[in-house]
C-alpha cells in the first residue's frame, strides 16, 4: 500500500510531474531506484500537494527534452528527479536522489501520514462484467446504460 509513499510525498514539489498521471497503463519505463517495480505507476499525487487536473491533459503539451528538478528536502532525506519528455509526453522519470539508503529513513517513510490522491469523478466505459455500488444491480445498470447509449447515437 505504501510502496510509493516516498515518491508521492514529494510529487507535490515537482509541478512538472503532474503529467505522471498520464503514464497510467503506458509502456513508458519509469526508473525508481531500489524500489520494487511491481506496480510501475508512481502516479499518486499528494492530497494537499497540488491541484489535480479534472480532466486528462491534452497529450503533447510539454516540450521535448530532459529536465532535472531541484533538490528537495523531504524531511527524511533529499529527493531529486529527472524527467524526460518525448513527443510531448513524459517518457521517463529517474530519481537522482532518493532517501532510501538507510533503514531508518525507510522506517520513517512507512510511518508517515496516509498518502491519498484525488481526482474529479468522470463517467467511464460501460464495458464491465460487474458493478459495485451501494446496493446496486449490475444488470440493471448495464441495461440502463446500454439504453441510454443507444439514444445517444
Amino acid at each position: 500500500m505504501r510502496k510509493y509513499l516516498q515518491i508521492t510525498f514529494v510529487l507535490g514539489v515537482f509541478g512538472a510531474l503532474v503529467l505522471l498521471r498520464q503514464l497510467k497503463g503506458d509502456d513508458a519505463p519509469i526508473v525508481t531506484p531500489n524500489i520494487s517495480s511491481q506496480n510501475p505507476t508512481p502516479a499518486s499525487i499528494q492530497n494537499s500537494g497540488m491541484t489535480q487536473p479534472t480532466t486528462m491533459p491534452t497529450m503533447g503539451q510539454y516540450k521535448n527534452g530532459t529536465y532535472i528538478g531541484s533538490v528537495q528536502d523531504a524531511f527524511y532525506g533529499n529527493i531529486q528527479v529527472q524527467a524526460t519528455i518525448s513527443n510531448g509526453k513524459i517518457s521517463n522519470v529517474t530519481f537522482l536522489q532518493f532517501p532510501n539508503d538507510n533503514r531508518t529513513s525507510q522506517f520513517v517513510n512507512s510511518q508517515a501520514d496516509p498518502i491519498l490522491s484525488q481526482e474529479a469523478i468522470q463517467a467511464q466505459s460501460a464495458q464491465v462484467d460487474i458493478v459495485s455500488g451501494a446496493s446496486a444491480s449490475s444488470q440493471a445498470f448495464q441495461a440502463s446504460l446500454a439504453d441510454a447509449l443507444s439514444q445517444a447515437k
Partner: protein
Amino acid sequence: MKKQAIIMGMLVTVQIFDHQSTNEDIQEVFAYLHYIDQKFSTYRKDSEISQINRGEINNLDYSNEMKKVLELCEETKKETDGYFDINLNGILDPSGSVKGYAIWQSSLIFKNKGFKNFYIEIAGDIQTFGKNEKGESWRAGIQNPFNQKEIIKVLKISNVGIATSGNYQRGKHIINPKTKLPADEIASLTVIGANVYEADRFATAAFAMGEKGIEFIERSKNLEGYMVKNDKIAVMTSGFKKYL
C-alpha cells in the same frame, strides 16, 4: 453459466466459467443464501435476529451461525474503534457485514467444489475468483453515487472482494455509532479487500467515519479504497491504482 435470483430482497448474480459447474451447484448457493436470510434478515419477523431482538431467544440458544457472526461483528467493532457497531439502541442489526459474510461463505462452497473462475454478487458487493469469459481479470465498475446509470471507475480484479457503502440508494441506512446520526458526510466508499467479507465490513465502518474513513483504509493492511465525496471529488488510497 449465469444465474440470478432475488434473495434477501436483493438481486443475487452468480456467474461461473468452469465447465463442470451445474445448475444444481448454483441452486445450492441460492439455498444457502435463503438460509442466511432466515437467520439474519431484520426485515423478516420470523428470522432468528428478529426473535433475538424481541427477547424471545436466550443467548445460550443462539444458532452456531448466529454466534459466529455476532463474534465476528464484535471483532470488527474493536478493529474499527467502535465505528462498526451492530448494537443501536439495544437492537442488534448485523446487516453491515452479513452480506459480505454470505457472499464469502457462498464462494467457499464453489471453491470446495473446485471451481476457479466465478463471481458472486449481491446488490453491488462482489467476490471474484479467477478470470472472466475472455480469460482476463474481471472488470468491475464503480457506480456513480450521483447518477446510478454511470460508472466512474473500471477496476481489473481477481481473487479479491469489493464492496461499496453509501446512503444514496437504500436511504440513510448507515448510522455513525458515535453520533447516532445517519452517516452522510461522503457519497460513497468502495473498498477492495482480500475477500468480500473484509471489504464489506470495513467499507461499512469506514463510511461511518466520514472523510476520515479513507485514511483508515489507507492505514489498514490489505485494503484499498475509493471514496467519493459530496463535491464529486474522489479520493483513493495509494495502492488503489494497481487495480486500474
